[in-house]
């Protein structure tokens, strides 16, 4: 039988609530995010690799255009990704992509690399170049509340 540990062997309601909160916190999945960077740093990184600063308008066009396949980046993230997106096949909700609307966006280098790898393969059937990533980041960073 599966049961939660019972932390309530105490007479004091506050202590019981704290104990329960602690138990829930310990049992909750630990976040796997490294939070080791910022969106602006990632823009710098890709601009340096590309040899030129990312261009926001080029990034907007890149993001909202299909590149020979069925999807564009916007298909899941929205044409202006300032609100939660939706997976184009499954309907699953996705956090907003623009850093101005989602403070966790682009704050984990490994995640940035992983999602660019996967999703560029989905949209372009290849990896995105450093210039393309810089352009996209320049545009996403330009979207302000």
């Amino acid at each position, binding site marked *: 039988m599966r049961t939660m540990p019972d932390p309530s062997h105490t007479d004091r309601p506050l202590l019981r609530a704290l104990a329960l909160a602690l138990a829930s916190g310990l049992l909750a999945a630990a*976040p796997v995010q490294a939070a080791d960077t910022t969106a602006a740093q990632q823009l710098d990184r890709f601009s340096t690799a590309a040899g030129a600063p990312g261009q926001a308008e080029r990034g907007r066009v890149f993001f909202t255009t299909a590149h020979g396949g069925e999807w564009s980046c916007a298909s899941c993230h929205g044409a202006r990704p300032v609100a939660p997106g939706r997976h184009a*096949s*499954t*309907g*699953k909700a996705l956090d907003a992509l623009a850093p101005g609307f989602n403070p966790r966006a682009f704050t984990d280098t490994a995640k940035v690399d992983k999602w660019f*790898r996967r*999703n560029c393969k989905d949209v372009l059937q290849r990896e995105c170049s450093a210039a393309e990533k810089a352009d996209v980041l320049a545009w996403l960073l330009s979207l302000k509340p």
Partner: protein
Amino acid sequence: MKPTPLLPALLTLLALAPTARADGPLMPLRVPPAYTQECGACHTAYPPALLPARSWKRVMGGLEQHYGSDATLDPKTLQQLDGWLQQHAGTSRRAAEEPPQDRITRSAWFEREHRKIDAAVWKLPSVKSAAQCAACHGDADQGRFDERALRLPAGLSASQRRAWND
């Protein structure tokens, strides 16, 4: 001779026996955070018990072409999740079937459970896909699919709504 406590023993056994219906949570007690994060990013994080081990093996071996998307993982995470899925794969009679394309939604038991749902309902914007369990099963990410805890997706017609209550 003292009477043996047969009834409590029997009840305990019944409580411990795996149920055929999806009343309790289908997720194992421990879910690796990577499973929720990687395999639950684009769709419901499916309980491993819903597919047999051989189906999971094929899924994890083909992540470059994961139902039309690239879902590749770094080798370490791949190994971890592959192992976890193999360990917790379904062994019940109904999970023994390897469904077409290893799709849970094409299993015989899934189609039977959802047989009264109008084809048009799957295409509603609020549902979009049978793969989106959470459209109706609000607690799907915890592995709960209790028929008594369903929620109506937006956009059902009156007759579809009536069929819901059958």
